[in-house]
């Protein structure tokens, strides 16, 4: 563009006019897009899993934009990289909330990263949508938890193992950090309440891959079922060692709470065939909605062999819950979204979900899958309906006696 005196005058006049009419300005720029954040590790050790979750969020957003966006506006995702490091997560969360003035972030995968960003979301009053199944014991007004809490994974699981599989002696094994230890706490209560007993409760370092001594211990313990809260790539060496020491999933099954389609594909389906996992979602759920979801995800990621699993599905459907909340509220402030998201229901690929009006966790339908030789699960047991999330079930919370309500945590009940 050649700047001559006339055009300069023209643009100056236009700018001045625009500046003197600030209301006009604001509505013009606001009509552009609604910005949300996606905070997952794009680099580092956790990036493989977290990139998948980020993809699920992006896919949901692109579907929303294709059907007209939210409140008639397109949704724009600002992606930040947590770099597999809780501290970086905290920095990037601050950036999204303070610099970009974003009120909603989808993100975090590990409990460590969620705990790191939580104070920022609470102090600055923004909303985090968190999709991973976790250990509970949290009651934040600034987080919508779309993944399972212990009572939704174990509440039906332990009674089913005792009654249907006829198992009486549990060996509990996990990776050594907060999630497996909290899961073990809930499990022991349920095991004893169902008239069974546990003979071992052992932990191995996170990322440990030498399972010889532990598997021998399981073999010698006289247990007739293993409850596994092992996470990450340790899962692969665990299942392999299990088979290689001559243990059979038929007589001594591993019943897991973390092992998903991803790990089964990585270890080789033959090692896990016959074992069980409890999750609200499995890739094998045979509904048109789920088939469509798998197909779309494979197309979106350009990977014809991509697998879908619980956290991935939750990462996807939480975006639609957010959309519905924004549409109900009519604006995108955190307070409005929080008020509107309570009680929102959505038909997710795995079935109906509902955000609890008290604790902002999702009502999910517990299912038990048995892993088959093809690496997929067969759902052998399912609740008829989604059940209420109880993040404090390890500490005695029941549906009649809630610890976490819309008012916040009642700390007096914790002892």
């Amino acid at each position, binding site marked *: 563009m050649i700047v001559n005196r006339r055009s300069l005058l023209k643009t100056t006049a236009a700018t001045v006019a625009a500046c003197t009419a600030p209301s006009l300005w604001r509505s013009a720029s606001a009509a552009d897009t609604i910005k949300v954040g996606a905070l997952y590790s794009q*680099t*580092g*050790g956790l*990036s*493989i899993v977290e990139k998948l979750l980020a993809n699920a969020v992006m896919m949901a957003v692109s579907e929303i934009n294709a059907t007209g966006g939210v409140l008639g506006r397109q949704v724009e995702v600002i992606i930040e990289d947590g770099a597999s490091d809780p501290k970086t997560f905290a920095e990037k969360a601050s950036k999204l909330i303070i610099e970009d003035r974003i009120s909603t972030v989808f993100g975090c995968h590990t409990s460590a990263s969620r705990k790191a960003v939580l104070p920022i979301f609470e102090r600055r009053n923004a909303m985090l949508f968190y999709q991973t199944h976790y250990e509970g014991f949290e009651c934040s007004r600034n987080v919508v938890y779309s993944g399972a809490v212990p009572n939704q994974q174990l509440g039906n699981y332990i009674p089913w193992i005792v009654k249907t599989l006829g198992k009486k002696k549990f060996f509990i094994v996990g990776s*050594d950090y907060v999630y497996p230890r909290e899961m073990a706490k809930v499990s022991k209560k349920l095991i004893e309440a169902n008239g069974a007993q546990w003979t071992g409760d*052992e*932990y*191995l*370092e996170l990322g*440990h*891959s*030498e399972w*010889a*001594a*532990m598997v*021998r*211990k399981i073999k010698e313990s006289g247990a007739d079922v293993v409850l596994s809260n092992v996470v990450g*790539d340790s899962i*692969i*060496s665990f299942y*392999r*060692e299990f*088979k*290689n*020491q*001559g243990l059979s999933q038929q007589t001594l099954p591993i019943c897991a709470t973390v092992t998903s389609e991803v790990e089964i594909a*990585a*270890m*080789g389906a*033959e*090692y896990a065939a016959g074992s069980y996992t409890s999750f609200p979602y499995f890739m094998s759920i045979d509904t048109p909605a789920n088939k469509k979801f798998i197909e779309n995800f494979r197309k979106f990621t350009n990977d014809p062999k991509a697998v879908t699993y619980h956290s991935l599905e939750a990462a996807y459907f939480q975006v639609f819950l957010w959309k519905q909340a924004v549409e109900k509220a009519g604006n995108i402030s955190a307070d409005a979204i929080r008020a509107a998201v309570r009680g929102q229901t959505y038909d997710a690929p795995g079935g109906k979900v509902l955000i609890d009006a008290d604790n902002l966790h999702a009502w999910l339908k517990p299912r038990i899958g048995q892993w088959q030789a093809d690496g997929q699960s067969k759902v052998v047991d399912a609740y008829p309906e989604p059940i209420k999330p109880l993040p404090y079930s390890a500490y005695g919370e029941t549906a009649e006696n809630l610890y976490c309500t819309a008012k916040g945590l009642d700390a007096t009940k914790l002892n």
Partner: protein
Amino acid sequence: MIDILFIGLSLGSILLLVSLGLAITYGSMGVINMAHGEMVMLGAYTTVLCGKWLGANLFVAIPIAFLVTAAIGFAIERVVVRRLYGRLLDTLLATWGIAILLQQAVRLEFGLSFFGIHVDGLGPGLQNVAVPTLLQGTVAVGAVALNSYRSFVILVTLVTTLATWIILNRSPVGMQVRAIIRNPHMAAACGIDVKRINSLTFAFGSGLAGIAGVMMSGFKSIFPDMGTPIAVDGFLVVVAGGLGSLSGTVMSAGMLGEINGLIATATNDTIARAVVFGVVILIILLKPKGLFSFKGR
């Protein structure tokens, strides 16, 4: 009891496999090769790539990984290590740099990822190798059922150790290597081409690490920085066993493996690891030159 001892034996054999190459490079050449763990990693990645691109199983990967890592080791010696003999701290830093370069090379798929090209089997992610059906489950030896894969690892360790011993003690090249271990200047004065022998020794040590990598790939997930903790274990074994002594390395690997196995069975793996470190510290305090070392002249 037999199964506990077997676990210890298996742990010891893995340690030995990793430290064998180190015992040779560190022991004979006095080079602290910080990139040794990365040789193990490259061996593991060779297994992955063999599986994905050649459709070859673990057995085929063993000789290929040996050749690949030996060639890379040879190149590293020629280009970098050769110029730094006698400068312990410099070799340490230089090989550490090489270690980081190798990790990043795998992570960035040798730079191809910058151009949007993805090589299946490389990259920052976790890789896993399918174990041949033959090595899954258990194998009956007499009245006890032993873990097939672990038995195979023990077997491979036995063979490579024996081969190393024969090369060192029964071949002309081996004699020259032993002469260099004792006194490189005297060896050179006697007409041994120290430079050539050192290149070969370094390549051989790296090749052994490559075999260790193939064996590790059946146990654990493979990722670019898997080598670092493995190399730490290797150094422990070599230091405890005594520099330049093959039998010392064998004994200390066996001993640390059994201690680890016994304590892990009695308590847990975390305590077992602490005890192993404690034992190594004790050995270094009481016998600074390791359990089996040469008397220097």
